[in-house]
C-alpha cells in the first residue's frame, strides 16, 4: 500500500472532489471548539485542533436513531406490526478522527458485534464508514492514551493515518478500505524517504511530550467484589452532581434506551443514548432500584470501564485516555485518579 503526500490545499480539494462517492465528515471550528460536520462547498475545514469537543461516535452510533416504524391506523392491514426504518448505508468517511476516538470504536465494537448478537444498526454503519485518523503532534495535559493501549499515532481502528507535517499531510493507508479511499481521492503523490523520516521524528517527539500516565496493570487481577466494596467510592462520588456530561462526551460510553414515539397514527421505535448516571436507568417497575444512590451510579461508571469490561472482554480497559471527562467534569472528578485508586487497592 502506498503512502501519499498531499499539500493542505490539495487535501481539502481532493476531499471535496470525493463527495460523490462518500459523505465526508470533517472538523469545523465553532468559537472555542471543533465539531465534525458534513463537508459541503461552503465548509471551512480546520485541522488545527487538539480534539473535537464531542467524539465522532455519533456518526456511527447516533444519539437518537429510529429503529422501527409502524402504523396505528386500524384500517391499515399491517397496523401494529413493526417494520425496520429504511437507512442510508452509502459510504461515509470521517476525516480527522483522533486515534483515541478510533480506538474507542474498536473497544465498543465488542459490545455491539458479539458472537451471540449483532446489532445491525451499529454493524452496518461501521462497515460503511472509512476512518481517516489524524495523528497528534501536540498531546495535551489531560491526554493519557499511551497508558491505555493507544498512542498519538496509534493505528487501532483506523483505515488511514494522517501525519500533519506542517506544509503537507502524509497519508498512510492501513486497511484495504483506507487504500480504496486514497485511490478515490486521485490526487497526491508518493511520499519520499525524507518526509517518511520527518513523520517518524515528529511522532516520536509527540510521544516524548506526554506528561500524563496511569497504571492499569493490576486491575485484571483484583477481586471484583473487593473493589466493589472499596472504601474510596464515597469520596470519589462526593462532589458528583450526576449531570452525565462524562457519559455524553465519552467515546466508549454506549448505553442506550429504547422508546416509542407516536404522532397521529404513525409511530417510531427509537433508541437514544442513555447513561448510568441517571437513577431512571435502573429503576424497576416495582419501585426497587439497585442503583438508587449516587455513589452506586458513580461506582458503576468507573467499575464498568476499568473492571467489568476488563474482566468480560479481556481487551484492556474501556477508556482510551482522550481526557474529555477530565476536562469537562464540572466538579473535577478525574478518571486517572480513580484508576490509580482502583489499581493500587
Amino acid at each position, binding site marked *: 500500500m502506498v503512502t501519499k503526500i498531499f499539500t493542505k490545499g490539495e487535501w481539502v480539494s481532493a476531499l471535496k472532489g470525493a463527495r460523490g462517492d462518500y459523505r465526508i465528515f470533517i472538523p469545523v471550528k465553532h468559537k472555542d471548539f471543533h465539531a465534525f460536520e458534513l463537508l459541503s462547498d461552503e465548509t471551512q475545514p480546520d485541522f488545527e485542533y487538539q480534539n473535537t469537543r464531542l467524539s465522532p461516535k455519533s456518526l456511527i452510533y447516533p444519539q437518537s436513531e429510529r429503529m422501527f416504524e409502524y402504523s396505528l391506523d386500524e384500517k391499515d392491514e399491517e397496523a401494529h406490526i413493526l417494520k425496520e426504518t429504511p437507512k442510508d448505508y452509502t459510504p461515509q468517511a470521517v476525516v480527522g478522527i483522533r486515534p483515541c476516538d478510533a480506538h474507542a470504536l474498536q473497544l465498543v465494537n465488542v459490545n455491539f458485534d458479539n458472537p451471540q448478537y449483532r446489532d445491525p444498526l451499529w454493524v452496518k454503519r461501521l462497515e460503511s464508514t472509512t476512518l481517516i485518523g489524524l495523528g497528534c503532534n501536540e498531546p495535551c495535559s489531560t491526554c493519557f492514551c499511551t497508558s491505555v493501549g493507544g498512542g498519538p499515532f496509534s493505528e487501532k481502528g483506523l483505515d488511514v493515518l494522517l501525519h500533519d507535517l506542517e506544509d503537507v499531510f502524509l497519508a498512510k493507508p492501513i486497511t484495504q478500505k483506507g487504500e480504496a479511499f486514497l485511490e478515490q481521492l486521485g490526487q497526491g503523490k508518493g511520499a519520499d524517504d525524507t518526509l517518511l523520516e520527518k513523520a517518524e521524528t515528529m511522532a516520536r517527539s509527540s510521544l516524548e511530550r506526554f506528561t500524563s500516565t496511569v497504571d492499569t496493570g493490576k486491575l485484571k487481577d483484583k477481586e471484583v*467484589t473487593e473493589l466493589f466494596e472499596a472504601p474510596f467510592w464515597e469520596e470519589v462520588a462526593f462532589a458528583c452532581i450526576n449531570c452525565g456530561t462524562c457519559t455524553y462526551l465519552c467515546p466508549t460510553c454506549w448505553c442506550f434506551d429504547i422508546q416509542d414515539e407516536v404522532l397521529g397514527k404513525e409511530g417510531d421505535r427509537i433508541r437514544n443514548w442513555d447513561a448510568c448516571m441517571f437513577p431512571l436507568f435502573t429503576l424497576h417497575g416495582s419501585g426497587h432500584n439497585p442503583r438508587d444512590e449516587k455513589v452506586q451510579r458513580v461506582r458503576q461508571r468507573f467499575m464498568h470501564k476499568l473492571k467489568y469490561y476488563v474482566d468480560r472482554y479481556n481487551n484492556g480497559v474501556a477508556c482510551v485516555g482522550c481526557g474529555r471527562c477530565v476536562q469537562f467534569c464540572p466538579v473535577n472528578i478525574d478518571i486517572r485518579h480513580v484508576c490509580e485508586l482502583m489499581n493500587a487497592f
Partner: protein
Amino acid sequence: MENPYLPYPVRIEGIVTETEDGNLKTFKLVFLNPEHEKKFSYIPGQFAELSVAGKGEIPIGIASSPTEKGFLKFTVNRVGLVTKHLHNMKEGDLMGVRGPLGNWYPWEEMEGRNVVIVGGGFAFTTLRSSIIYMLHPENRPKFKDITVVYGARSPEMLLYRDELADWEQRDDIHMHITVDATDDPDWKYNIGFVPAVTEQKLTNADDAIAIVCGPPIMIRFTQPVLEKLGFPSERIILSLEMRMKCGIGICGRCNIGDQYVCKDGPVFSLARLKELPNEY
C-alpha cells in the same frame, strides 16, 4: 443480517384475569407466521420482550412450556406504562414478542435428581413453565421427586389456581400451597410464609436442586432455610429481575458486575451470585 430488536407479530388469543385484585392477567399469544413459532424455540426459565406498538417493550418470563404447542403464555403484573396498556387490550389485538431471551434453569443438572421448587407471589410464571415441562409424560421419568412450595398473600392472589388444584391430586408431584393469611374456613392448604413452610415440609437436600423465584424478601428468608437443610449454594438456583431494554446484553443497564442479567441470566446459582457485586 437478522435484526434482534424486531419483534415477531402475535395475536392475543385469550386473556385470563388471575388474581382477585385484577392486577395479574395471563395472555395467550399466537404467532401470525408459523415460521416465527418455529424460530421461537425456548426452554423453561427464559423470558421474552413483549412489544406493544406505540408504548414500548417489557421483559416477561415465559409462563407456557415448550411442551405446550401452538401458543405462548405470559402472566403480566400491571405496574407501568406498557403493562397498563396491555391490561386494557382485548382478544384479537395484535402485539409483538421478541425472544426467547436469556438463559434457562439448569435442566441437565436437574435430570436424575430431586427437584425442589420454591415460589412466591407472581414470580411463579417460569416455575409454572418448568412444572408443566417436567410433568409431561416424556419428561417426568427424567426427574426424581418433584416438590413445590408456592405461596401468595391470600388464596385469591395465587396464580393458575385450576392447575394447582390438578397438581394437588397427582401423586408424582408433592404440592405445598400456602397463603400468608386467610379467613376462608374451607381453606384446605397451608397458612404461613413460604420460608417457614419450606422449613416444615422439606426434610433434606439429598441429591436435590432448588429453584427459587419470588419477591426479594422471600428469597432472603428462604436462602438460610435451604442452606440449613444442606443445599450447597451451587444447587440453589435463582431467577433475577432487572430493568431491561434490549434484552440481548447490549444496552448496558441490567448488569451485576460484568454479567448482564438479560443475556447471562436471568438464572444464576447462588454460588455464582456470591462471586458478583451485591447490586441487584
